[in-house]
C-alpha cells in the first residue's frame, strides 16, 4: 500500500522542482503579460523571442568563448544582463519599423489596429523561427554549463534520510526570474516611467492629454517585454536543449500562465506561471509523464470555468 503513495521525499522534490521551473515560467508570463497588459497586443512571436534569447546565450558562452575565458557562471550572468538591453533595442526597432506603422495606418480604428498588429506578430514569429533555422540549423544544441549537472542538496528534516536536490542551473534561472520580475514591479510602480506606462494602458486618450506619448510608451513596453523574454531564454538554455522551434514548447505555458493570472494583470501573470510550473511537476506524482501537458490544460480550463477573469484579474473591463 505504501508503495503506491509517493514518498515524502518525492513530494518535496517535485514541489521544489515545480517552484523553480514555475519561477522561470513566471518571468516568461510576466513579459507576455506586460505586452498584453499595456499594449493590449497578443504577441505571437513570444516563443521566438525566447528562442532568440537561448541562441544569444549560446553565442555569448560558446560563440564568443566567454564561457571558457571568464568561467561559465560569470559568462552566464553577463549574457543574462546583456540580453535585456540588446533585445530591448531589437524590440524597440521592430515596434518602430513594423508594429507602430501598421497601427497608424490612416483611418484605422483601434480594433483594426490591434488585429493588424496581431497578424504582424504572427509574421514576425515565422520570420524569426525560419530565419533561425537557416542560420543555426535544426540540430538541437545546449549550453553545456557545468552547473546544469550539479545540485544543491537540502536536508529539510535534518535527519539525513529525506534529501531534496535543487538543480543549480534551475536555481540560477529562478533567482534571475525573481529578480527580473521584482525589478519590473518596482519599475512599474515606483518610477515616473512606470506610472506613464500604466497610464498609457489605463486610458490612452487621457494619457495623451497629460502630455504622454502613448506610442512611445508602447515601444518601451515592447522592448522591455522582448528583453525580459530573452533573459528567460538565456537562463532556460542552461538546462533545456533547444532548436529554432523550441518556442513552441513554451508558448502554451506562457499563454496559460497569463490567462490564469488574469489578462492585463502583469504581476498576476508571474503567479500564473508559478502555478503552471507546480501543476506540471506535481501531476507527475500521480499521472504518467506523458500527461504533464494535459494537466496544464485541465487546470487552465477549470480556472476559466470557475474564475474567467483569472486568479488576479479584475472582472471590470477598461472603458
Amino acid at each position: 500500500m505504501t508503495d503506491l503513495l509517493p514518498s515524502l521525499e518525492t513530494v518535496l522534490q517535485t514541489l521544489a522542482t515545480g517552484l523553480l521551473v514555475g519561477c522561470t515560467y513566471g518571468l516568461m508570463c510576466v513579459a507576455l503579460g506586460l505586452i498584453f497588459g499595456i499594449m493590449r497586443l497578443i504577441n505571437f512571436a513570444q516563443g521566438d523571442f525566447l528562442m532568440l534569447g537561448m541562441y544569444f546565450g549560446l553565442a555569448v558562452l560558446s560563440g564568443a568563448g566567454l564561457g571558457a575565458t571568464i568561467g561559465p557562471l560569470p559568462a552566464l550572468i553577463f549574457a543574462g544582463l546583456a540580453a535585456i538591453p540588446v533585445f530591448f533595442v531589437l524590440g524597440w526597432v521592430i515596434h518602430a519599423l513594423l508594429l507602430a506603422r501598421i497601427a497608424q495606418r490612416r483611418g484605422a480604428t483601434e480594433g483594426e489596429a490591434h488585429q493588424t498588429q496581431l497578424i504582424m506578430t504572427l509574421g514576425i514569429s515565422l520570420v524569426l523561427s525560419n530565419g533561425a533555422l537557416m542560420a543555426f540549423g535544426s540540430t538541437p544544441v545546449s549550453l553545456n554549463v557545468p552547473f546544469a549537472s550539479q545540485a544543491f542538496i537540502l536536508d529539510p528534516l535534518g535527519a539525513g534520510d529525506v534529501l531534496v536536490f535543487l538543480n543549480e542551473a534551475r536555481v540560477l534561472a529562478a533567482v534571475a526570474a525573481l529578480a527580473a520580475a521584482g525589478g519590473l514591479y518596482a519599475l512599474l510602480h515606483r518610477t515616473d516611467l512606470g506610472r506613464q506606462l500604466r497610464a498609457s494602458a489605463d486610458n490612452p486618450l487621457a494619457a495623451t492629454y497629460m502630455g504622454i506619448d502613448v506610442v512611445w510608451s508602447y515601444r518601451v513596453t515592447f522592448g522591455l517585454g522582448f528583453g525580459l523574454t530573452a533573459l528567460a531564454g538565456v537562463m532556460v538554455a542552461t538546462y533545456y536543449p533547444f532548436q529554432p522551434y523550441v518556442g513552441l514548447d513554451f508558448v502554451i505555458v506562457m499563454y496559460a500562465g497569463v490567462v490564469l493570472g488574469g489578462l492585463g494583470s502583469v504581476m498576476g501573470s508571474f503567479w500564473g506561471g508559478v502555478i503552471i510550473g507546480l501543476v506540471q511537476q506535481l501531476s507527475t506524482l500521480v499521472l504518467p509523464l506523458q500527461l504533464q501537458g494535459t494537466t496544464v490544460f485541465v487546470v487552465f480550463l477549470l480556472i476559466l470555468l470557475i474564475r474567467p477573469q483569472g486568479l488576479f484579474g479584475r472582472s471590470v473591463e477598461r472603458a
Partner: protein
Amino acid sequence: MLSLEGVSVRYGGLSALTDVSLSVGEGEFVTVIGPNGAGKTTLMKAISGVVPLSAGRIRLGGQDLAAVPAQRRPHLGLAHVPENRQVFSGLSVLENLELGTTPLADRAQSAGNIEHVLDLFPILRERTAQLAGTLSGGQQQMLAIGRALASTPKVLLLDEPSMGLAPSIVDMIFERIARIHRETGVTVVLVEQRAIEALELCTRAYVLTTGRVVASGSGRDLMRSEEVSRAYLGA
C-alpha cells in the same frame, strides 16, 4: 492666447466642424454653448490635437499648432479636462495628479501644484491612495480638473464638467471653476450644454450649432438673444 481660424473637422464624410473661428484673450473665460451634437467636444479635441483638422489653423500664444502633436501640446500650456472625466481608473488619486504634472520638469513645483489641488478639493486629500475608478462622479470630475491644474496650464479646456452630475455637485464644480479662474488667472475655455450657468460664469461666449458658430458676444447679451433661444428651445 488661443485662436482658431476657419477650423473644419471631418469624420469620414461627415462634417463635424465647419469654418469655426474664435479667439480667446489671455486670462479670459470663454464659454462655448450648443446643443447635443453641435460639435463642442470635437472643437475641444481639435484644440488638443487628438482629431486632425481638414482646414484652418489653431494658434496658442501666437504659435501655430499644426506641427505640434497632441502629446506635446500640454508642454505648451494646454490642459484638457475631457468629456466624461477620463480619469485613470486603475491608478490611485495621487498617481492621477502626479500624471498631471508630466509636462513639468521641476519636481518641487510638481509637488507644490499637487498640494494646491488638494487644498482646492479637500475631499481628494482624504482619498489619495484610493483607486480613481472607485470615486463618485463628482469626485472624479474634481480629480480630472485637479489633474489638469497640476501642470500649471496657461489655457484650461473644460469639456462639459456638469455631465451626469447631481445639481448640487454641478453648482459646486462651477463655483470651483470660477474660483480657479479668479485666483490663478488661467485662460478658461468652457464647453457646456447647461447654457444659463455657463453664460453666467463667462466673460464672452460663442454659440455652436451643427458645427458652425452662429452667435457670439458677452454672456449677458447672449442670454437675451434670439439665436440662443432658437438653439435651445427650437423656437
